[in-house]
C-alpha cells in the first residue's frame, strides 16, 4: 500500500465533522504522516453538507487527492455526494443511525460484490447508551475507523486526551465502546518520523505576528479571516488583546491610533471588509503609520461565495486607497509561509512605517498544514527606527527638536510616540511639512519625494528577502507561476512533469531581479490561478513578463493536481 491516504469525513453542519477530521489527522500525524486538510463548508449553521478531506502521506502534499480511500459518512448525503470519488478498494464507513437506505442495510455487510465495501455502525445509539450528547457520536465514528485501520487504543486515547478539553471521560467511554465492537480490517503502517505541528494558515498567521510583537488585534467578523480573531481571543497565553469594533472602518482607524501610540497592532478581514478600510489604508500611507493588514480572499465580487475561494483580490490590494503611497503586498501559500511572512510583514510595517498587506485566500486561511517548528526560532521582532534610541539618536535627536516627518535620504523618518518627554508628535492625513503642519504650497513635492525614496528603499529590501520561491525541476525551460493555495497543487504538477514552478510571495514592491533570475532559461510560461481574469498574469505583464497561457479555475474550489496537468498538456 502506498503511504498516501485520502480520507473524507462529512455530515451536516452541527454534526462535528470538522473536529472529527482534525482528530483523524492528528492520529496520522502522530504515527509520522504529513498532513493536509481541505475544509469545505457552507454558509449555514445547521443542515447542509460540510466535509473535511484529509491527505495523510509520507511525503508532504498540499493539495487533496481526487480519489478517496476512506469515506466517513455522518449522514447519507455524504455517501451520495462522494461515493463516485471512491478508490477501487475504497471503504465507506457510515453512521447506521442516519443512513437508512436499503443499499447500506443491514449495516455490516462485508465484503460486498457490487460497489465499495461498507461498514455501518450505530454511532448515535452508542453515544446515547453511554450517556453522551448527539454530537459525541462522531467520537464513536473516529474510534470505529481507528479500529478498522489497526490503530492501538492507547494511541487513539492519547490523541483524544490532547485534543478534547470538554467531557473527555465521557468521550473516551463512547470511543472505547465503539472501538470494542468494531472489526479490524487492515493495518496502516507507522512512519518513523516525528509528529509535526499542525496549523491552519490563520493560526500560523496569528502566531507569526505574535512572535514579531503583536499586542492588539482589531477585527470585525468576516469569513475566512474570522478564525484569526477567535484564535487570538481563545489563546490568552499569547497576550494579544482582541478588540471587536463596530465596523471595519473603525477597525482600521483604531489600529492606526494604537500604532501612532507605539503599540504593534494588526487588522484582519476579507475583501468586502478591506474595501471599507481603504480610506484608512490611504491615511496610513500619508501619515506613515505602521499597519499590518491581513486580507483573506473569498469568492467575489461583493458577498460572492463567503465560504469558498477565489484569488480575485490581488489587483485590488495592489491599488487600493486613493493617492500614491508605498505598501508591501505579501501572499504566502501555506501555514509555514504564513508563520514566517506574517512576522516579516509586521516587522516591515514598523521598519518602513507603511501599510503591509498579507494576502491570504480561503484555503490558505482555513486548511490545515504540517509545519516545521524550526521556523519559529528564526522569527523575532525587529526594532523600528526610533528617535531616541540606537544609532538614529545621535543623528536625529541630539540637541534638536523632533520632526515627525524629517526629510531623510532613505525616506524613513525616526519614530517617536506621544508621552515621550520634550517631544511633540504630529501625525496627519493632510500633506505636511517636517513637523506635520499642513501645507499646500509647491513645497509639498519634498514630502512626496521623501515617500518615493522610501519606496526605493523598500524595493531594495525586497530583493534581499525570499520574495520568490522556485520548486520542481529548476532547469526546465517550461515554468508555471502559481501563488497562494494554488502553489500546493502546482508544486505536485511541477514534480510530476519535471517542470519549474515559480511562486511569487512578495508581490509589491515587485522583486524584479529575483523574478528575472527565476525566469532564466524559461521558454514557455503559464500562470495557474483561481480567478476569471488571470490577475497574477496581469501583474507579470505590467513588469514586461508575458505568459504563454493561463490555467484558470473559478468554481470556488482549489485545483486538483490532475486538473492542472490535463489543462497544461493541452496548451503545451
Amino acid at each position: 500500500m502506498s503511504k498516501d491516504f485520502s480520507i473524507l469525513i462529512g455530515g451536516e453542519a452541527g454534526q462535528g465533522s470538522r473536529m472529527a477530521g482534525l482528530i483523524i489527522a492528528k492520529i496520522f500525524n502522530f504515527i509520522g504522516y504529513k498532513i493536509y486538510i481541505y475544509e469545505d463548508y457552507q454558509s449555514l449553521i445547521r443542515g447542509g453538507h460540510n466535509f473535511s478531506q484529509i491527505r495523510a502521506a509520507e511525503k508532504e502534499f498540499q493539495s487533496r487527492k481526487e480519489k478517496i480511500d476512506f469515506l466517513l459518512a455522518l449522514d447519507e448525503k455524504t455517501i451520495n455526494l462522494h461515493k463516485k470519488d471512491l478508490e477501487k478498494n475504497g471503504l465507506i464507513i457510515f453512521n447506521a443511525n442516519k443512513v437508512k437506505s436499503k443499499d447500506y442495510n443491514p449495516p455490516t455487510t462485508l465484503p460486498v460484490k457490487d460497489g465499495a465495501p461498507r461498514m455501518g455502525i450505530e454511532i448515535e445509539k452508542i453515544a446515547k447508551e453511554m450517556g453522551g450528547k448527539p454530537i459525541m457520536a462522531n467520537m464513536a465514528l473516529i474510534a470505529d475507523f481507528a479500529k478498522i485501520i489497526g490503530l492501538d487504543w492507547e494511541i487513539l486515547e492519547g490523541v483524544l486526551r490532547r485534543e478534547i478539553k470538554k467531557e473527555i471521560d465521557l468521550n473516551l467511554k463512547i470511543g472505547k465502546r465503539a472501538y470494542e465492537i468494531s472489526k479490524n480490517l487492515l493495518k496502516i503502517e507507522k512512519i518513523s518520523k516525528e509528529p509535526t505541528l499542525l496549523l491552519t494558515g490563520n493560526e500560523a498567521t496569528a502566531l507569526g505576528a505574535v512572535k514579531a510583537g503583536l499586542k492588539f488585534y482589531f477585527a470585525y467578523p468576516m469569513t475566512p479571516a474570522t478564525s484569526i480573531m477567535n484564535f487570538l481571543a481563545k489563546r490568552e497565553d499569547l497576550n494579544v488583546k482582541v478588540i471587536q469594533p463596530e465596523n471595519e472602518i473603525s477597525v482600521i482607524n483604531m489600529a492606526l491610533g494604537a500604532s501612532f501610540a507605539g503599540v504593534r497592532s494588526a487588522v484582519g478581514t476579507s475583501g468586502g471588509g478591506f474595501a471599507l478600510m481603504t480610506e484608512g489604508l490611504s491615511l496610513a500611507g500619508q501619515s506613515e503609520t505602521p499597519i499590518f493588514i491581513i486580507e483573506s480572499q473569498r469568492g467575489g465580487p461583493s458577498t460572492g461565495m463567503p465560504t469558498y475561494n477565489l484569488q480575485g483580490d490581488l489587483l485590488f490590494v495592489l491599488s487600493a486607497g486613493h493617492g500614491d503611497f508605498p505598501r508591501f503586498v505579501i501572499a504566502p501559500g501555506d501555514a509555514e509561509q504564513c508563520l514566517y511572512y506574517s512576522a516579516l510583514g509586521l516587522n516591515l510595517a514598523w521598519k518602513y512605517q507603511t501599510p503591509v498587506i498579507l494576502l491570504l485566500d480561503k484555503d490558505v486561511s482555513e486548511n490545515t498544514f504540517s509545519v516545521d517548528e524550526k521556523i519559529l526560532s528564526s522569527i523575532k521582532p525587529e526594532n523600528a527606527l526610533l528617535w531616541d534610541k540606537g544609532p538614529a539618536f545621535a543623528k536625529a535627536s541630539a540637541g534638536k527638536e523632533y520632526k515627525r516627518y524629517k526629510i531623510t535620504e532613505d525616506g524613513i523618518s525616526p519614530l517617536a510616540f506621544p508621552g515621550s518627554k520634550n517631544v511633540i508628535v504630529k501625525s496627519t492625513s493632510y500633506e505636511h511639512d517636517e513637523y506635520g503642519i499642513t501645507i499646500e504650497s509647491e513645497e509639498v513635492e519634498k514630502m512626496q519625494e521623501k515617500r518615493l525614496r522610501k519606496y526605493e528603499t523598500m524595493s531594495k529590501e525586497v530583493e534581499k528577502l525570499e520574495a520568490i520561491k522556485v520548486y520542481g525541476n529548476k532547469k526546465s525551460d517550461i515554468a508555471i507561476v502559481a501563488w497562494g493555495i494554488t502553489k500546493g497543487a502546482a508544486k505536485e504538477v511541477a514534480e510530476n512533469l519535471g517542470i519549474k514552478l515559480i511562486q511569487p510571495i512578495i508581490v509589491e514592491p515587485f522583486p524584479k531581479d529575483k523574478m528575472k533570475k527565476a525566469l532564466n532559461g524559461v521558454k514557455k510560461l503559464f500562470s495557474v490561478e483561481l480567478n476569471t481574469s488571470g490577475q497574477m498574469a496581469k501583474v507579470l505583464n505590467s513588469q514586461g513578463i508575458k505568459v504563454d497561457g493561463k490555467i484558470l479555475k473559478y468554481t470556488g474550489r482549489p485545483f486538483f493536481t490532475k486538473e492542472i496537468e490535463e489543462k497544461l498538456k493541452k496548451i503545451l
Partner: protein
Amino acid sequence: MNPKNLDTYCQNTWCPGCPNFAILESVKRAISELIEKGIPRENFVFTCGIGCHAKIFDYLNLNSFYGLHGRCLATAQGIKLANPNLKVMAFVGDGDTYNEGISHLIHAAKRNTNITVLVHDNRNFALTVSQFTATSPKGFKGSSTPNGSIEESLNPLELVLSSGATFIARGYAWKIDHLKNLILKAIEHKGFSFLEILQPCITFFDNRQFYEERIYELKSPLSKEEAKIKISEWDYSDGEKSKIPIGVFYKVEKPTFEDLVLKN
C-alpha cells in the same frame, strides 16, 4: 516649535471673528491649568476629524493625529487602548461626527471609553461652503438645499445619553470661561465625556443672537431623569421660544472600556 508653547507657527485661516478662536482659547486655558496641576504636557494627545474645527490640529502644539472625516473617535480609542496614561481628546465637527461618523460616536459612548469628545457644532458643513448637517434646523437654506432642508434636526445629547455616555455637557463658544470649566470637567471625568459646543458659523449660519437670547446656565448635578428633561428642553429647531440650557447635564461613574480590556 517651542515644546513649552501651546501655539504653533502655522498661520490661522479660520474666518476672522470665527468662534473657533474662542474654543481654541478655552482649550489652551484648560490645558494650561491641567499642566500647572501636574499633568505632564507630553501626556496630552488629541485627534480631529476633517472640517473647519479640525484646523485646530495646526494651531495647537500638542501631540495629535489629524485623522479622517468622521473617524477620529476610532483613532482616539486606539490611542487610549495602547497607552492609557495619555489624556485623549477628540475634536470633531457636527457633520463629521453626527453625519459621517455617527456609528463611532454611539459605540464609543456605549463602551464608556475614557476619552473626551469636543464637538464644534456650527450646524452646517461650512468648509464645503454650507450644506445641512444632522443638527441643522429644518428649513436650513444651504447650498444643496436652496429651498430649505426637509429633514428634522437631531438632538445629539439625547443620542449620547441613550448610548451610554457617562458625562454629557453643552457649552457656548463665546462663554470662554464657562467653556474652559466644562473642558476641565470633561477631561477630568473618568469615562466617555461628551461636550457639545454651540458654535455660531458667522459666515453661513450666524445664530449668535438666537443663542444669546435663549442660553442659560444649568445648576448641576442632575439626576438621569432631570437630565433627560433638560436635554429635551431644546430640540435644535429654529424659531421656538424654548430656552437652551448649557452646563453639565449628566455625570456618572462606570468602569471604563480600557480598564476592562486591560485588567489582566
